[in-house]
């Protein structure tokens, strides 16, 4: 039986056969892309139905986010979002709360609307909008109910008295700690670890994570994805993550596949060495199912977190003179990269600063000298800061880029003032240069670090507007064509899945996204307003119904 889907316009992302209006599908596979007339050569030989429910919509290949973190998201998503900027979530739009008075009203509302016998968690507080926060204020609202306010950056929490009592946090032990304020219930930066370690009993419980993963599933669907990459499997606890993710995401209800890339550091620690780690990694493909897969891919790290200003920077560094940090000692990075390079793996390396990138490129250059490889898939993940000269090296060495362009939107203005100065801050995510050098660039969200909305990322890359509406380094804007490739076919190549998905052509999986507007008609400025109506995963239709919270019944 053949199903024919029709659409107002099909953007195939196959440059040789760019547009169509009908597509024939059998057993989850595309048979033919064209129009109702050209499809006849297939249809006369088999039974068929025509599914024209999307006749007024625009069809594209299902979107692909090659780098997000389902388990980190599972920790965050069960929390109530009360935020200074609008957040578009499948179970409802969180409107912006921009004053202290409104924030208090929202807290009170959320308190009433959630199960009173459960501890209360909210995420998104920011002093800039929401005024001062304290234990006393939370006690007034929540009284005996344990409550936690998690700051937008993830680097601060506030606990009320009931929560501190429940966790056994005693004043006596906290006195004199520079980044813990017992009076205000405030734990921040290096004082945060202590609070999180205590909160883990709640936010890492099986029940919490399952609820979070179900919401994660909705988030991925809502963004129009049919494939995602989990770019650090095993960041908390490998076996637990695997079984939780498999239970929630590896079934018929889940409209996407997950390519799993193990986190090398953690596996090496667990196995007692890098070589033992490699041996373990080589067995992981035995676990593959249709939806959950490992490949010959590994996730490595050079420098620290972008949001914490721990990226390693070349001279002249940060304005305040602080240093970033290496997550892997440079000498050790080379040893590990060589181990996986010689084993034929595709290395995905987290690089945030231009010195972190320099280490990744110097190492690749050595490895190419020692044992040249073509099509090796060495991928620069995040691509925060870089120099024009480094872009040429990326090209020369055959590396690819998976960029978090959202950084630029949220952080370029702040980092101009408080980080490294406007010149370098505005050139973060140097994707225009990559396009000119014809380097493969995919976009990712690193969700929950940025919204998992591919068209939003594409909007940022094409317009380079920061959160104040100014354009940062216009010469680094990307073309609409390349930006759409970055969330489809190029993202598929990044994950090594380009043979089965990422564009619409005969032989590939029938993975589609249906949009209410044509990206080429609205152009780059309109990308972020396009709505995802439905996705099709291997021929099965999954409509996006906003404002439905599938987890609400089980909360």
């Amino acid at each position, binding site marked *: 039986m053949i199903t024919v889907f029709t659409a107002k316009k099909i953007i195939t992302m196959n440059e040789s056969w760019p547009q169509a209006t009908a597509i024939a599908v059998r057993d989850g596979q595309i048979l033919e892309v064209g129009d109702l007339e050209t499809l006849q050569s297939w249809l006369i030989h088999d039974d068929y139905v025509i599914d024209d429910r999307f006749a007024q919509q625009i069809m594209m290949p299902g979107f692909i986010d090659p780098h997000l973190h389902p388990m980190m998201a599972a920790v965050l998503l069960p929390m109530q979002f009360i935020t200074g900027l609008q957040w578009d979530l499948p179970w409802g739009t969180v409107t912006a709360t921009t004053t202290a008075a409104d924030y208090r009203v929202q807290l009170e509302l959320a308190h009433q609307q959630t199960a009173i016998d459960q501890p209360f968690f909210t995420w998104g507080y920011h002093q800039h909008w929401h005024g001062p926060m304290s234990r006393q204020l939370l006690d007034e609202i929540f009284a005996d109910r344990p409550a936690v306010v998690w700051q937008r950056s993830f680097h601060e929490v506030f606990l009320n008295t009931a929560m501190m009592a429940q966790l056994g946090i005693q004043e*006596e*032990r*906290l006195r004199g*700690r*520079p*980044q*813990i304020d017992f009076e205000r219930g405030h734990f921040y*930066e*290096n*004082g945060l*670890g*202590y609070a*999180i*370690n205590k909160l883990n009993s709640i936010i890492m419980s099986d029940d919490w994570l399952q609820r979070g993963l179900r919401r994660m599933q909705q988030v991925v669907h809502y963004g129009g994805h049919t494939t995602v990459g989990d770019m650090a499997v095993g960041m908390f606890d490998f076996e637990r993550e695997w079984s939780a993710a498999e239970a929630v995401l590896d079934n018929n209800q889940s409209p996407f596949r997950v390519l799993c890339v193990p986190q090398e550091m*953690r596996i090496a*620690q*667990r196995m*007692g*060495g890098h070589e033992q780690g490699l041996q373990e990694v080589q067995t992981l493909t035995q676990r593959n199912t249709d939806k959950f897969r490992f490949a010959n891919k590994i996730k490595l790290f050079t420098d*620290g977190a972008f949001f914490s200003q721990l990226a*390693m920077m070349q001279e002249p*560094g940060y304005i305040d003179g*602080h*240093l*970033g*940090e*290496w997550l892997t*000692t*440079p*000498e*050790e990075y080379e040893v590990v990269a060589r181990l996986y390079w010689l084993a034929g793996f595709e290395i995905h390396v987290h690089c945030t600063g231009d*010195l972190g990138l*320099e*280490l990744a490129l*110097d190492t690749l250059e050595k490895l190419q000298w020692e044992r040249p490889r073509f099509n090796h898939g060495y991928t620069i993940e995040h691509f925060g800061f870089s120099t024009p000269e480094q872009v040429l090296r990326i090209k020369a060495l055959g590396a690819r880029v998976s960029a978090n362009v959202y950084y630029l939107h949220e952080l370029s203005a702040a980092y101009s003032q408080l980080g490294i100065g406007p010149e370098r801050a505005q050139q973060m995510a140097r994707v225009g240069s990559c396009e000119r050098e014809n380097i493969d660039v995919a976009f990712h969200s690193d969700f929950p670090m940025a919204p998992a909305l591919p068209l939003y990322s594409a909007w940022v890359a094409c317009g380079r507007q920061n959160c104040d509406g100014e354009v940062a380094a216009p010469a680094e804007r990307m073309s609409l064509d390349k930006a759409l490739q970055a969330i489809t076919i190029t993202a598929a190549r990044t994950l090594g899945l380009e043979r089965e998905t990422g564009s619409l052509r005969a032989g590939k999986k029938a993975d589609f996204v249906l949009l209410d507007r044509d990206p080429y008609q609205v152009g780059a400025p309109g990308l972020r307003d396009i709505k995802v109506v439905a996705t099709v995963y291997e021929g099965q239709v999954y409509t996006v119904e906003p404002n439905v919270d599938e987890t609400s019944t089980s909360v």
Partner: protein
Amino acid sequence: MKARSIPLNPMLMKQAPVFDLPVTLISGYLGSGKTRYINRQLLNNSGTRYAVLVNDFGELNIDAQLIESTSAHSVSLSNGCVCCSLAADIAAALEEVAACAHRLDWVLFEASGVADPQRVKQQVLNWPGFQLHNTLTLADACRIQSLVNDKFVGQHIRKQLIEAEQLTFSKTDLVDADEVAALQLWLAQLRASAGQTPHWDPHPRYYSQNLVDKQPWQRSDLERQLQSMDPALLRLKGFVYLQEDLDHQYLLQWLPGQWSLESFGPAREPAVNTLVAITQHPLCGDILSR
């Protein structure tokens, strides 16, 4: 200086507060001799019960005969020391040490050699149950001058040297005396050019004294002595028995400026006073007199 009262309520006994553990932060790049330094402390601990927090305790090369028990991320030694791995989870390691703080004296914390030293200090300063005592930087005499110019780690190494309060050159046996002198001059100039004092403290040494006997103390006698201890004493800690209450053991903790003597559960068999004193220089007599 003020003694705390003795809690009589048995429910409170287990909650006797334990003083913060002093921490020596050991920094230095790969090959600077951190592991060797820690190994030496562990094997020649002369009674001091160290908690050692390291990135990889496989490298410590602990003699199997010394190992008393192991858990997922820690190893307990028969000399009272504990080794914990920082690699998997710093929080878990610190909490594991904090949980048995009453039977530990000192913490040796291996800092990442490639993070801002200021940030690593903050990590220790912010963890309840620990108190930063000193920072020790180790530098490989053979490599240090080229390392400060290293493209990738030069910034960190330079900062470690400039900000170091206490610093020791390792592998000085591999270079001759002239070179060591030249190295010291070079370092003084490096510090001076960064606006720092050109001087640094040499590697501090600590001495320990064990006091083990069976004779219960008279509370007033012990308290009187605790009010005025030898100025070289950094820390005194352990369990004692009091003539006034032979049914319980007491946790004695002393730091400059504060001390406590509190009931800590029922008496053990055999009832032995076991105290460890850590001092800045060797003492002639016993730290406590009978």
